[in-house]
């Protein structure tokens, strides 16, 4: 039995893209930038973090999940392609205009639209054009679920989005029924890909990668012992520090305080007084950049000298603007160095800037990469949602404009993130080698 399976697997693994040859050659990135899963492959446990970051790391759990990828075992791959297609439709779930994520959503859209425009410009005769079906999310009342259903009704082959973690979760559960694959480009919620629903790929490194790096930096590198946490009092804040607190504790330095604030709150005297009394040597922020910048300044004015740490949102200019001098020395994680010299990135920045009149940020860049993966998958698999899923969800590595990505057993990008600090109002990226997968000649 096992032998037979192995034979089958071997055949499967070695099989060239036989039916794919019938498809038109993939547009966009060349195939060398895609490395797919191998049979029986196991994946790094717990996002590839060192054992000391694992929960209950002293004992062997009864069962580990996500060491392999949950396959989709349902039918569909052999269903005939629809014959009445006028275009290849792909959904994009934006954030609602009144939502805090709106500006990030605009950047995301710019990246996606650029990818579509470039792909459609390079269509060859006989190839159907790509069509973007946009829906503005409804943060209230589980609206993302309705939109995910609408995408299916619109016969999309897959969709991109969304930024809000709750929306992404709700939409993902719908896709299990509608069998439409999602590529998420901007939700850092670690639990999003831990649901074992084999219809999702996330190209953005999640909070866990950032928080592990930050916990390591705060506790081990700077030897901080009294860590205070100030976070938004919503779901984003809760999930944003959940793993950090665990990691810090596992490294022997549990957070001394966890204080909450309401987004947009102009000042937080109570939280400041409480934190000042605790005399922390490190403060870890999670929240909107303008809020954090404002509070950072208020902390310094209150005479708090602790080091400031945060996540990728501190990259935002609004943090610097609000914090002013208080930003000096603040350290945070970011996904990549926008000044990197990778030709893919440099070329992308030039094209993006030509199209939109400004440089891309991480959300635009990951959205572009996510769209590229989706467009490539559709061209490679043809207009069949199940084969497109296979293309997307069996990806192990992808070299996008943001660099090489590595996808773990949950389908989340676990590529390492960078450390950044503010010096004299400038963002200084700490030296770090570009990640390259072994299969691509990396270490």
């Amino acid at each position, binding site marked *: 039995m096992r032998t037979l399976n192995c034979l089958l697997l071997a055949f499967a693994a070695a099989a060239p893209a036989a039916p794919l040859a019938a498809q038109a050659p993939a547009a966009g990135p060349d195939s060398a930038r895609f490395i797919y899963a191998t049979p029986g492959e196991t994946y790094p446990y717990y996002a590839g973090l060192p054992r000391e970051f694992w929960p209950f790391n002293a004992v062997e759990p009864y069962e580990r999940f996500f060491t392999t990828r949950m396959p989709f075992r349902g039918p569909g791959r052999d269903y005939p392609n629809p014959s009445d297609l006028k275009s290849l439709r792909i959904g994009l779930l934006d954030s609602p205009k*009144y939502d805090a994520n709106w500006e990030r959503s605009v950047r995301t859209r710019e990246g996606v639209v650029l990818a579509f425009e470039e792909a459609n410009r390079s269509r060859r005769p006989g190839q159907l054009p790509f069509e973007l079906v946009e829906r503005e999310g409804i943060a*209230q*009342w589980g609206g993302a679920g309705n939109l995910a259903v609408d995408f299916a009704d619109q016969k999309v082959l897959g969709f991109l989005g969304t930024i809000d973690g709750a929306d992404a979760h709700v939409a993902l559960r719908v896709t299990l029924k509608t069998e439409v694959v999602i590529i998420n480009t901007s939700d850092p919620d670690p639990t999003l890909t831990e649901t074992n629903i084999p219809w999702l790929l996330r190209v953005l490194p999640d909070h866990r990668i950032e928080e592990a790096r930050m916990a390591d930096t705060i506790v081990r590198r700077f030897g901080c012992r009294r860590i205070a946490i100030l976070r938004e009092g919503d779901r984003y804040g809760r999930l944003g520090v959940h793993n950090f607190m665990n990691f810090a504790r596992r490294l022997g330095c549990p957070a001394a305080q966890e204080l909450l604030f309401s987004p947009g709150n102009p000042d937080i005297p109570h939280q400041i007084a409480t934190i000042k009394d605790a005399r922390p040597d490190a403060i870890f922020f999670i929240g909107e950049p303008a809020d954090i910048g404002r509070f950072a300044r208020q902390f310094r004015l209150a005479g708090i000298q602790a080091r400031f740490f945060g996540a990728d949102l501190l990259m935002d200019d609004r943090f610097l603007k609000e914090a002013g001098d208080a930003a000096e020395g603040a350290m945070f994680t970011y996904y990549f160095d926008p000044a990197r010299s990778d030709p893919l990135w440099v070329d992308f920045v030039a094209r993006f800037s030509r199209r939109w009149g400004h440089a891309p940020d991480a959300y635009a860049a990951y959205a572009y990469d996510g769209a590229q993966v989706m467009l490539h998958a559709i061209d490679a698999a043809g207009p069949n949602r199940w084969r497109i899923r296979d293309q997307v969800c069996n990806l192990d590595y992808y070299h996008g404009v943001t660099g090489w990505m590595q996808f773990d057993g949950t389908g989340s990008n676990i590529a390492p993130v960078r450390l950044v600090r503010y010096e004299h109002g400038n963002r200084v990226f700490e030296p770090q080698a570009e990640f390259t997968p072994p299969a691509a000649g990396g270490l």
Partner: protein
Amino acid sequence: MTPRRIALRAAQVVIAAAAVALAGGFTARTHQRIMTGRPNLAVTTCTHCHLRSAFKLPWQKPRPHHDSPGGIAVSPDGRTLYIALDDKDEVAEADSATLAVIRMARVPGGPFGLALDAQGKRLFVACPQQDRVAVLDTRDLAEVASIGVGVRPTDVVYCQTRDGERLVVPNSGSDDISILTLSPLAELARVAAGREPYAAAVLDGGRRVAVANRMATHDQMLTAPASEVTVLDPASSRVLDRLALDSAHLAEGIAAVPGKGWVLNSMVRVRNLVPITQVKDGWVMASGLAISRADGQVTQVPLDEANAYFPDPSGIVASPDGRRAFVASGGSDVVTVVDLDRLGSWLAGSSAADRDDAILDMALSCRYVVARIPTGCDPRHLALSPDGRRLYVAERLDDSVLVVDTASLKPLGRIVLGDGGRDDPIRQGERVFTRARYTFQGGFSCRSCHPDGHVDGLSYDFDGSGVGDNLLANRSLCGVAGTEPFKWNGKNPTLQFQDGPRFARVLMRTDPIPDPQLDELATFLVNLPPTRTMPWSQVGKGLTPAQQSGRALFFATKRTDGTPIPRALRCQTCHRPPLYTNRLISSVGTQSPRDPKEGFDTPHLIGVGAVGPYLHDGRAKTLEEIWTVYQHDDLHGVSSYWSKEQLNDLVEFLKTL
């Protein structure tokens, strides 16, 4: 004092008075503008917001009660009649031979629908005012039992099933049907009906019961409404079928036809989607008969004629031999006699297309309508003696029951219950309300669109200045006192103005109602109490937590996050208690491309839970849709911060008003 001094002092007084008046006026205007949040508010009176006490409204005051006959039940031997007198909380027992009232029984709760058991030993009484069914012992007319049912039960039928005795009770206020067992007296199930289930009929000896739903339902604006006939199995309380009567409303009469397997419904065929450019040829509405066959095929045929109408068909009975049906026309004070054999032969010889179009052919009725029997005012309920030889007609506004010989179709006499209330201006106004004589060819009455003064749930296209640009949802007249101005554009300062010459020109197409009758009509209307939307069991009880939360949202001055809500956008500013209206024109972002103006009269919210659809043209199917589908930029109150729970709570609160 010299004349000069007097003149000087007088001038001082005048100047002082003028100053006081100016200051007062300025202060009042400023107060109005601040409290309404409308800096450009035109001149209004204090009473727009500061209504004299709601307890002083006409419908709050005592009024004369009358012996208006409701349901009629005839004993199995035909000797005794039981007549429900809902306005008097009584049931009368009369001798069919002498036509004299023998006994009266007091039955609180507005007894309206009656039914007897097979032996005539128990009389079952539907009491819509107290949401209950009472059981009376016919030996002494004493109430021996009572059971609560849904809201406003208007009828009750008795049947024996394979699983025992059953009562089926249509609850017109809660849109459901209670199925009761008798031993013990308990509610077996409550099944969903259409809108306003009103009357029931037993079919196939109790194997099925059909319920007529008086009001039409329609899913969305500008789609044809339909009234439902709910057919259920009383033994298992399973709904077997829901027959749709296309474009029918006021379908409040139902009868089973022995031997033919038909269910007959009296109904009004409305044309609310067609601009009202005329009344002729049933353009607005016409009376009809719906024949539902056992195979589910439904055919509508007219009861009116090419040049005459017999509107507001109500009670309907079929003779025991299944050869004739009698239909009361409350608007024209006649009972129409239908030859069911002729009707059957026409149906048998007609094509499917003929049957589909039958209701459109105003000249068809002369094939099967064999007589029109004149009656007293507003004939409603009908009953036949068990042998079918006598027809009993409840002349509701004459406080009498007409007895007709079904062979000669000639009257045999009357059971006189009261004096008809000739001296009561409210009762006189109700006569104007129910009579169709004020409409061209007697096409319809006020009641045709406002059954019991309420709504028909439809939107009509009145051709005012043009065609198709005046789509308006019907508004309830219940609790209308003190809510002037009237009409959605707020142009009519009084009910007399509302129902006067303009109404005759746009709708009735005949001479206006004469002033004396118009005053009587207005008197009747302002004495109509609001519709009760809460179950009787909850009346006088406190609000539930959800309703309390909804009330807090209604009166909120700040959002959940503490930011203030502009005064002009607070619910209570425009929908100000006690009637929940400030009687001003408001713009809430609902103007459609063909609406001439963006502002509409702020409707009162008393009984709002029962008057859907909502907004001026009836675009909102439910209260929820006002804020989920038709709210734009928080123009109709600030709702963007509401959670779904909060919206649900608000709706629960509104249903209590």
